């Protein structure tokens, strides 16, 4: 019999029940909760007279609606405020392992605070009413986004009704060039397989490039698995994973720690395991990436040119290119480096961790944001990240260069708070989605790495960060 993939091991160790047609009940170890996708689930529980099965699996925090400045003013939008207050009262009623209300010193983006407090561990199943839950797969956890009905189901039963996915291995071998980051790898993978390439699959990321990445870099890659269509991205835990977790508040302690690490060491794909599909990339061939269109798969290396729809044979793709060029206000064949920016956003659950901010600060140090840039902002992923960055003096580097240094939250990744683009504005963004209207109605988003975003802020247009 062939061996098991990491995904098989995670799946098999959580099956509570299996129906004749393969539909399973999967036990859920960790349930992350934010204010946007949970109110209807709590309401459903109340209406049915149900209680959470295990409130001690809940890690909750408002992040989508919270402002990133003037915290003393509270949340000005009354509808946003009500949603955040509703999370407060719901958690007060049910209890939770961790709850950081608005303005708590450790509040932040749910996908940043989970790992940094040690509440995401290898071997776990992790869900959240948020597609970027795939982030937690970086620890060797089976983690994916769910809908609100499923949020209610998990709260009420501690299980999820699920069918096993197919297994896709994305292997990136060799080494990344200087200035090329995890974000560029993620975008290059999506460019290669498309935004539907991972539909129906759980992706395991492997190869020398992935092993060489820090935990922050691994989180960036797994975060973007959903943009390739895969609900879950996973990376086998290793010594780096254990090193990251050791001593964190909710990580196992004392005798449990040794036992846990011994178990985590078994969480790797067996040598003779078989994947349903394999995609290979060479690290050395990946250049810094920039999206030009309205889907993450519409991406090119920095030295590329905006595509010409006339050259596209496939009618559906041609229409997509035409729609994207029109929305983005771009002309076919324009060099990516000639695209001028209005705003710069560094943040989001993809790229707001300490390593991202350090990489951005290296490029920003001693430089000035171009006068043509109307706003350049850095939004740390959590209170802890913010304090760490300030202790290292990164905030000074950013503000001296002309960036605004903000309070943590999801911010302009999806523009549910006041941080957003105006119609027609063009933004270099370290977030994960360049969909129409994502950062504000009519706003134009180009996805890049933190270092590329800073380089663009300084030049006023995209530049190859390897040349600055």
């Amino acid at each position: 019999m062939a061996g098991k993939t990491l995904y098989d091991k995670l799946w098999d160790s959580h099956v509570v029940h299996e129906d004749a047609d393969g539909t399973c009940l999967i036990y859920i170890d960790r349930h992350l909760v934010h204010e946007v996708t949970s109110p209807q689930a709590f309401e459903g529980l109340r209406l049915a007279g149900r209680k959470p099965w295990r409130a001690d699996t809940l890690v909750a925090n408002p992040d989508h609606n919270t402002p990133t400045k003037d915290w003393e003013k509270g949340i000005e939008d009354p509808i946003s405020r009500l949603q955040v207050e509703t999370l407060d009262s719901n958690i007060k009623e049910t209890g939770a392992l961790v709850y950081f209300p608005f303005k708590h010193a450790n509040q932040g983006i749910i996908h940043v605070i989970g790992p940094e407090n040690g509440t995401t561990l290898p071997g776990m199943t992790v869900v959240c009413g948020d597609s970027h839950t795939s982030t937690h797969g970086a620890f060797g956890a089976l983690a994916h986004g769910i809908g609100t009905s499923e949020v209610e189901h998990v709260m009420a039963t501690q299980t999820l009704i699920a069918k096993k996915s197919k297994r896709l291995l994305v292997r990136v071998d060799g080494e990344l060039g200087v200035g090329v980051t995890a974000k560029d790898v993620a975008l290059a993978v999506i460019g290669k397989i498309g935004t539907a390439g991972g539909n129906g699959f759980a992706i395991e990321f492997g190869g020398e490039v992935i092993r060489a990445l820090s935990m922050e870099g691994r989180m960036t890659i797994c975060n973007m698995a959903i943009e390739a269509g895969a609900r879950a991205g996973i990376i086998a835990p290793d010594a780096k994973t254990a090193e990251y977790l050791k001593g964190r508040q909710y990580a196992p302690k004392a005798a449990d720690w040794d036992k846990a690490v011994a178990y985590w060491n078994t969480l790797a794909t067996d040598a003779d395991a078989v994947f349903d599909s394999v995609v290979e990339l060479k690290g050395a061939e990946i250049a810094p990436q920039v999206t030009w269109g309205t889907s993450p798969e519409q991406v090119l290396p920095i030295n590329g040119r905006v595509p010409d729809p006339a050259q596209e044979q496939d009618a559906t793709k041609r229409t997509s290119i035409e729609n994207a060029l029109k929305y983005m206000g771009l002309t076919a064949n324009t060099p990516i480096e000639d695209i001028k920016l209005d705003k710069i956003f560094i943040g989001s659950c993809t790229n707001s961790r300490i390593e991202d901010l350090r990489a951005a600060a290296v490029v920003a140090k001693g430089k000035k944001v171009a006068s043509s840039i109307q706003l350049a902002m850095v939004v740390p992923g959590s209170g802890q990240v913010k304090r760490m960055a300030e202790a290292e003096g990164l905030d000074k580097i950013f503000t001296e260069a002309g960036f605004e240094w903000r309070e943590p939250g999801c911010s302009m990744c999806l523009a549910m708070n006041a941080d957003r683009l105006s119609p027609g504005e063009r933004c270099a963004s370290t977030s994960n989605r360049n969909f129409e209207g994502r950062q504000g109605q009519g706003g134009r988003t180009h996805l890049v790495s933190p270092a590329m975003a800073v380089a663009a802020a300084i030049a006023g247009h995209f530049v190859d960060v390897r040349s600055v």
Partner: protein
Amino acid sequence: MKAFTQLNGLACPIDRANIDTDAIIPKQFLKSIKRSGFGPYLFDEWRYKDHGEPGMDCTNRPLNSDFVLNQPRYKGAQIMLARENFGCGSSREHAPWAIEDYGFRVIIAPSYADIFFNNCYKNGMLPIVASHAVVDKLFKECEATAGYSLNVDLTSQTVTLPSGETFTFDIHPTSKHNLLNGLDEIGLTLLHADKIKAFEGKHKAAQPWLFA
């Protein structure tokens, strides 16, 4: 959950690949703490010429007459024809809530994003996967024929075209059973409460740190 058995309804073609859930229901409407009332804001940025905000009365907003949903011939449509990878992006269940609240009960497309696909079933909606050839044919016929209606029957897993031509579709037996009977999935799962508790006991013995 609302049951779905059979529907004879007007079809409406949304001819665009990779439609994301941000397009289906823009973020500002996600601030609601309710499950209903999203229909008027379905495809808000494509449907209206102004900027929509939650709570807005949509009856007097300027319509984008180019958008297919605004064409009088598609008023009252209950079956959406869509292209590949429909519902990609965010996990927001507000997307199927908006589609259902607008009046659609069935979507027919070559493929869907996984989370969106699951979310449809939880709301008594039937997302049908059809081949590219079938979807192309439906788009062509629908655009060429006013009042183009389809008959969707879940029991026999068939869609019948106005010509009488029929195609069959696949659906997971459990999903079919739950949809046909409008079953409360949580209630069904709780029938396995003893199994869940037994699993939990074993799991805790093996990995006590997950229960700290």
